[in-house]
C-alpha cells in the first residue's frame, strides 16, 4: 500500500467513513467552496477617500513612505524626486507593464527584465491594495515578475487609488473576477522586510527591501 493510501485509509477509518456519509460530506464541501463564507470583519469605511486615507495611515504604520500624485503620467517624476532625495541612483528595474511610462523625461534609467542581485531599485505596480492593513497585493505574471519587489533594497510601487479595496476578501474576489484563477505568485506586501530574531528587536531590511515607497495615483 502506498503512503497516500495508508494515510488516507487511517484517516477514513478514524472518521468512520462509508459511502453514504462520504456522499453527504462531498456535497457539504461543494457547498462550503461555493459559499465562500466570510468571518467577522473589522469595520473599514469603503468610501474612496476613506480607503485612500486608511491605506496611507496603515502603510506608514508599517514603515512604508507614501507620495500622492494626480495622474499615472506624473509617477516617473515623483519617483525621480524620491530617489534623488535619498541619494539613490536614478536607475531601476521595472515591471514590463510599466515600460510605457515616460521614464526618460523624468531622468530615470529603467530596464524591464527579471531582477538581479545588483539592482538597487525595483519599480512595480500592484494588482490592488488592501486598506484594512495597508497592504499591497502583487500578482506575478509575464509582465509583472515577482522578484522585482524582492531583490532590490528599495521597492517603489505605483498604486492607483481606484484599486484600493477594504479587505483581503475583496482582493481575492477581484482576482477571481479579473484573472479567473490565482496566478502562480500572489504576494501581499506590508512595508519593508524585517526581522526580530535577535533579542526581539525589530530591524528593517532582513532579506527583502529596506524601503517600500508608495506612489498613490489619485486620478487612476
Amino acid at each position: 500500500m502506498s503512503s497516500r493510501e495508508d494515510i488516507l485509509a487511517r484517516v477514513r477509518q478514524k472518521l468512520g467513513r462509508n459511502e453514504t456519509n462520504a456522499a453527504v460530506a462531498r456535497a457539504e464541501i461543494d457547498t462550503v467552496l461555493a459559499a465562500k463564507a466570510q468571518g467577522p470583519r473589522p469595520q473599514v469605511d469603503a468610501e474612496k477617500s476613506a480607503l485612500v486615507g486608511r491605506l496611507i495611515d496603515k502603510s506608514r504604520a508599517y514603515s512604508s513612505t507614501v507620495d500622492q500624485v494626480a495622474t499615472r503620467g506624473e509617477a516617473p517624476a515623483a519617483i525621480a524626486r524620491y530617489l534623488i532625495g535619498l541619494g539613490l541612483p536614478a536607475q531601476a528595474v521595472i515591471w514590463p507593464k510599466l515600460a510605457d511610462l515616460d521614464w526618460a523625461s523624468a531622468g530615470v534609467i529603467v530596464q524591464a527584465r527579471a531582477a538581479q542581485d545588483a539592482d538597487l531599485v525595483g519599480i512595480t505596480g500592484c494588482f490592488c491594495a488592501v486598506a484594512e492593513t495597508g497592504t499591497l497585493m502583487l500578482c506575478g505574471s509575464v509582465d509583472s515578475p515577482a522578484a522585482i519587489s524582492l531583490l532590490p533594497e528599495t521597492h517603489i510601487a505605483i498604486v492607483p487609488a481606484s484599486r484600493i479595496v477594504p479587505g483581503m476578501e475583496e482582493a481575492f474576489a477581484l482576482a477571481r473576477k479579473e484573472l479567473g484563477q490565482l496566478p502562480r505568485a500572489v504576494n501581499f506586501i506590508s512595508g519593508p522586510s524585517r526581522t526580530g530574531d535577535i533579542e526581539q528587536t525589530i530591524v528593517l531590511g532582513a532579506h527583502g527591501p529596506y524601503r517600500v515607497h508608495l506612489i498613490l495615483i489619485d486620478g487612476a
Partner: protein
Amino acid sequence: MESRSHRFKENAAAALANPVLQASMKKAKGKFVDKRAIAIKEIDDFEGTREAAKQLRDRVLENLDLWLEKFESNATARGATVLWAKDGEEICRHVAEIGKRHGIKKAVKSKSMLSEEAGLNQALEANGIQPVETDLGEYILQINNNEPPSHIIAPVVHKSLDEVADLFEKVHKTPRKTEIPALTREAREVLRTHFLTADMGISGGNFLVAETGSVALVTNEGNGRMVTTLPRVHVVITGIEKVIPTLEDLSTLMRLLPRSATGQSISNYVSVLTGTKAADELDGPEHLYYILVDNGRADVIGSEFQEMLRCIRCGACMNHCPVYQAIGGHAYGWVYPGPMGSVLTPLYTGLENAIDLPHAATLCNQCGVVCPVKIPLPDLLRKLREKQTDRNLRPWLERAALKAWAFVAASPTLYALGVWFGVRYLKWLAGGKASIPVLSVAPEWTRGRDFPAPEGRTFRELYAQRKQP
C-alpha cells in the same frame, strides 16, 4: 529530530540555573505579551473571529480525507506533484529523490517545523545536498552546530546579542559587530549568495488552500519569498492537518495568526503560491512538490485530542505560559515547546517518551485564553495525565502515594486522624519557626521553596471551637 523529552526535569533545572537564558527569557516575555494585547484590540469582534477560525479548522478536520483529496486534485491540476509521507524518514527519502532527479547541489530553506521533526538537514547532507537555513534565527542555529530551535516563531529567543556577535565573528571570520542591524546585514549578505545559487527551495506551509490548491506562506524577513521564487525547484513540506477550505478562510486566519504570533496586524509578506511558472514567466520555480506528512497526525483524528490539530503554530500559548517563560523551549526536548508542545510531543512521539510534559503546566489556562483557534490546552494536558495513569506510566511511588491518599480521603475518620497527626508533626518539625526549609517526605518540593509551618490545630478543630457559643 530525536526526542530528549524524557529528560525534562534535568533540562528544566539546568535552564533555571542558566543566567544568560534567564535574562533572554525575561526580555522576550513582555514584548510578545504586550504587543499581542495591543494588536487584538484592532479587531472589533476578536472573540467572534476566534470562533470562526475554530469552526473552519474543525470543518476540515471532520472530513479531513475528502478535503485532502480536494486539495490534491486542485494542486495537481495546476502542475504541482503531491507526495505523501508517513514519517520523517519518508520525508527525507522524498526530498533526496527529488534532489537526485533534478541534480540538486544546494537547497535554501525557509522555516519548516516538519523538517525539524524529520531531521531533514542531516539527510540532505548525506545525499550530497547542502542545506542552508535562511530564516535569521534558524541560520544562527545552523551555524552553531545545528542547535535546535527553542521557540516555533522566534527560534533563538534564548540567545543574547553577545552570543550571536561571538558566533558571527567566529563563523564568518569578520570583525566582531555588536549592533543588531549590522549583524542582520552581515547575515543578509551571506545568505543572499545562497539564495542566488541554490537550485532547490524548501519551505513549510502555514496553510494549504483546498479551493485553489495553493500554499500560503507567512513571513517577515522575505526569505520565504526568496526560497519560493528564485530556485528552479520548490518543495513544500507540511502536515496533513494544514488544509483550509477557501481564500475567505485564509483572510479570517490572517487576522489572527500574525496578531497572536508577533503582535502584528499582518506579517510583512503573505504569499499564496499556486502551481509552477509559465514558460514565458521571468521567475518562479519550474517544479513544485508538496510533501503531505502524517508523522502521528492521522492517529489523532477522531480521538479525544483531535482539537489539537486545529493549531496554527502561532506560539501565543508558549509566550503566555509561566512554565515556558521560566525554562525556555529547549527543556521540552523535542520540536514543539510550551503548552502546544506538551500536548503534541506525547501524541507524536509516544506518551511514555514524554512522561513529564503533560505535568509541565500549572493549568492556569493562559494558553487556552490566548489560543486563536480556541484549543482547550489545559483540558488536553489533563486528559494526557489521565492516560498516563490509566497506562500505569507514572512512577510507582507517586501511584502508591495517590492510592494511599485515595484510601484515607474516602474515610472521614481516617482523614481527620491523619490531618490531626500531620499538623502537629509539622509544627514540631518547624520548631517554633514560621516555615520548614526541608521536608524529608517531599525533598523535591522544598528544593526551591520553604514549606509554611501549620499553626498546630486542624481546620476542623478550629471550626468546632468557633461553633461553641
